[in-house]
């Protein structure tokens, strides 16, 4: 598993625990990897990836009826934000959407199409060292 994922451009580190049934993947700044690319690499190694906990840098976009999506624009990937969750997190997401501010968002992705993101934490995206 490690070899299959590490050879992808943009992967910084891979830690696999078969006992826990987990693969932890850390990605380099300015990578262009999508969840699907990572899932495909795991599948080639003979493993099916189920739910994913992710941390991403992205934009929040407001949709009708209070719905929100998170877009990691470098990836052309969109996640629908799961309704509910902590109200403080929802407020942070809405403020960022209005201010057009990028956030660092952590949460659990369930489903693949459409991908739904249950957001657990959100904060201003850290400044990149260029």
């Amino acid at each position, binding site marked *: *598993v490690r070899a299959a994922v590490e050879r992808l451009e943009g992967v910084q580190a891979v830690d*696999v625990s078969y006992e826990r*049934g*987990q*693969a*932890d*993947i*850390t*990605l380099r*700044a*300015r*990578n*262009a*990897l*999508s*969840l699907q690319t*990572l*899932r495909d690499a*795991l*599948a080639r190694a*003979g*493993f*099916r*990836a*189920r*739910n*994913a*906990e*992710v*941390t*991403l*840098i*992205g*934009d929040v976009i407001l949709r009708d009826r209070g719905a929100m999506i998170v*877009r*990691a*624009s*470098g*990836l052309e990937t969109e996640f629908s934000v799961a309704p509910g969750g902590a109200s403080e997190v929802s407020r942070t997401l809405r403020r960022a959407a209005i201010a*057009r501010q*990028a956030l*660092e968002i952590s949460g659990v992705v369930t489903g693949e199409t459409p991908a739904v993101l249950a957001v657990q934490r959100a904060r201003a*995206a850290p400044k*990149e060292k260029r």
Partner: protein
Amino acid sequence: MSGRVALVILALLLAAPRHAGAELRRVRFQIAGMT
């Protein structure tokens, strides 16, 4: 002239991606063998 330069700079700023760093940073998959 300076007004035209300012317009070009403004157009370039608007065309640039706002957050070049939008991307996945960490992923933890729950995995299971497919055998």
